[in-house]
């Protein structure tokens, strides 16, 4: 294939990666930023979103577009509720201690993964896309649904941004992020904010999972990759910076795609990984963070 179309394809693929990543990472960034909790189980919420999407679309009769829409609403809500329960039962009782929450969320990761394996099984199951539309370019074909994912992710991020900057709940969240003690002194119920943040973060991961499932199928081990990449995005983007998260997701998505044009796939993966690691080494505060 000629260089131009090749590049175009790499960019399109990179954008789709970036879109899914930005959604998943935005959730992680919120949790990380507001609560200072490293949620190792974040990828499992993404997986649960995908698995629940499979369950919902299978249970509800009707056209694909409708059942998918239902999944898009039901799955994130269920996952958010689950996360809220986990927060109340576990994280809150740990007082959100950074080290303890890492261990606890590793435990949660095992529990959720096992639950998915026992109740859902080891197979990778497809969920039909809400619509079947292929774009045929002169050089190659491309899934229209993938472009829809990019748009949907953008819309969700925009809504999230509006929520954080324009609503009272968002303001309270940001205030708690800046200074937990002061927020408490001003009468903010920090426990409720944390629970809400954890639920929202999980819900965003689940939403990413639902969006991705027509592309990638639901499988109980699928949470692993997005977890690693989300962490990278969050740190490169700078703690708690939504804009940084978005830019970092695009940078990582695109660089992954473009690097893979020039090297054999495994070598490309090695180089992309090292590149991101070196960015972190040379700019420990992230690309957009003011300070670590």
């Amino acid at each position, binding site marked *: 294939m000629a260089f131009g179309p090749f590049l175009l394809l790499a960019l399109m693929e990179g954008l789709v990666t970036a879109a899914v990543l930005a959604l998943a990472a935005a959730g992680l960034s919120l949790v*990380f930023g507001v609560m200072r909790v*490293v949620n190792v189980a974040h990828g499992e919420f993404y997986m649960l979103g995908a698995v629940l999407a499979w369950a919902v679309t299978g249970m509800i009769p009707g056209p694909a577009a409708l059942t998918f829409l239902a999944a898009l609403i039901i799955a994130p809500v269920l996952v958010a509720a689950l996360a809220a329960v986990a927060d109340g039962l*576990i994280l809150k*009782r*740990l007082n959100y*201690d950074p*080290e*303890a929450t*890492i*261990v*606890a969320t*590793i*435990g*949660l*990761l*095992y*529990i*959720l*993964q*096992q*639950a998915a*394996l*026992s109740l859902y099984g080891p197979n990778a199951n497809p969920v039909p896309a809400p619509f079947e539309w292929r774009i045929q370019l002169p050089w190659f074909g491309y899934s229209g649904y993938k472009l829809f994912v990019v748009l949907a992710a953008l819309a969700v991020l925009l809504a999230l941004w509006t929520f954080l900057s324009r609503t009272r709940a968002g303001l309270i969240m940001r205030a708690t992020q800046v200074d937990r003690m002061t927020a408490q002194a001003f009468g903010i119920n920090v426990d409720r904010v944390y629970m809400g943040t954890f639920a929202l973060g999980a819900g965003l991961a689940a939403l990413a999972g639902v969006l991705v499932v027509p592309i990638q199928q639901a499988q109980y081990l699928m949470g*692993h990759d997005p977890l*690693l990449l989300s*962490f*990278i995005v969050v*740190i490169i983007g700078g703690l708690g910076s939504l804009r940084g998260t978005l830019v970092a997701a695009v940078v990582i998505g695109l660089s992954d795609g473009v690097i893979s044009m020039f090297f054999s796939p*495994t*070598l490309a*993966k*090695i180089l992309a*990984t*090292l590149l*991101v*690691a*070196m960015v*972190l*080494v*040379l700019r*420990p505060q992230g690309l957009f963070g003011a300070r*670590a």
Partner: protein
Amino acid sequence: MRRNGLRVWALHLALLAVLASAQFWLSPYLATNLARIMVLAVFAMGYNLAFGYTGLLSLGHALLLAAGMYAAGLPALLWGWSAGPAFIAGLAGGGLVAAVLGLLALRTAGVSFMIVTLMFAQAGFLTLLYFAPVTRGNDGFAVAAASRSFLGFDLSTDTPRFLAAFAIFATGLLVSLALMRSPFGRTMIAMRENEERSRMLGYNPFTVKLAALTLSGLYAGAAGAAYALLFGYVGASFATIQYSILPMLYVLMGGAGTTLGPFLGALLMFALVEAATGLTTAHQFIIGAALVALVLFAPKGILGTVRERWAKWLP
């Protein structure tokens, strides 16, 4: 630090005596597993030096384990090295890779350090796959019988294997105990407790942490080499993230920043997995629940809690 010397050494030596005799009263199955646990405990003790004592939360220790494993296994495979030189190579491999990792990753701290170490380990894993013609990639390779002999002892047989694992474990344990009772051990702990204050006492945090991480790498390298030579297999799966989480779990379970915690953690995890696979096919659930329970009810790990409540003298 110098105080309680007698009972601290007595406790450690008593444990070693019990372990040394264990091969006589344990079934062959449990004795073999005890050898495995001791090798993994060496890995965990190394992790404990970095994480438990120095406060370096690494998720890249699988890279160091694999470095030792391949540094020992590849010369055995390619040039037929025997166990002695191969083990030394593994030790050096772990230390060297740790030093390079530290030079880069220690420019970061906290969660960034965790992610950077994770990414270097991931790159290391992919590199093992990429150079499959040499490393045998994901399949790995069996270490030939000729390379599994040390001073005429066949390390693939029960007694020599147990004794070799015990010797490495005992060395690791006593070295880490001596280290923790030395001024340098105190300096490592100072990094964990208050890095800025340490700097204002004249310590260079970077070099202290680099030394701690390199030491940790020597332990991981020794464990990797020992696994290759004692159990006869080298493979890229040991470089995956699971093997970075494993020593963390052992250390947290046994008690971070305690000399005996890593071994206790490795032992209990083994017992837990054995019990869990027998009780239910959903054994991951049991492990997950145990972790959550542990962190809720004994957040400092078992020995950490014991030290806090009953035995302040535990090192």
